[in-house]
């Protein structure tokens, strides 16, 4: 099982008493605002206790079509990276699950 937007809305309904529509909108808006912030030049999103989303510029590099073996360059692009914060890292580090 994975955490999804539906479960996040459910929690806002259960814990904060938002109605179903408000809860659904809230979850949508949360992720949409992060996406829009990252569309901006030099966009960075810092969520203390959780982590930071940063933008990185990638130069063009040689690539290969894995099926045909043909060489095709991977074009220069801007990508999003996530750096987990200290608090999240500490909480996750302790996890010793076996299903991974």
């Amino acid at each position, binding site marked *: 099982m*994975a955490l999804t937007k539906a479960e*996040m809305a459910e*929690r*806002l309904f259960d814990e904060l008493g938002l109605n179903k529509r408000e809860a659904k909108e809230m979850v949508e808006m*949360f992720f949409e605002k992060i996406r829009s912030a*990252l569309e901006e030049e030099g966009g960075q999103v810092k969520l203390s206790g959780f982590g930071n989303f940063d933008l990185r510029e990638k130069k063009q590099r040689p690539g290969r079509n894995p099926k045909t073996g043909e060489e095709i360059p991977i074009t220069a692009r801007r*990508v999003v990276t996530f750096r987990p914060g200290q608090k*999240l890292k500490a909480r996750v580090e302790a*996890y010793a699950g076996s299903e*991974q």
Partner: protein
Amino acid sequence: MTKSELIDLIAKEQNHLAYRDVELAVKCMLEQMSQSLASGERIEIRGFGSFSLHYRPPRQGRNPKTGESVALAGKYVPHFKPGKELRERVNRCHVGEKAGE
């Protein structure tokens, strides 16, 4: 953008919830996401991306001050893979700028 700026933006954009409720909602969502990862559960948000755990095997580390060798246990670290929409939107403005030069 920081967490409080994110809260401000959401509070401004809708008119049915008080600022305090938006603040609680954002904190609640981040706490739920952290809890999920801390219990080994993935997060899958369509159009945004997925968070999962990656395993780092045990290794020999070194105390940078003393140079002493220390055994470090294996551990899990959070990993984020951006989804298609996020990837495209972030890269689109990049491509757009280049074309507009």
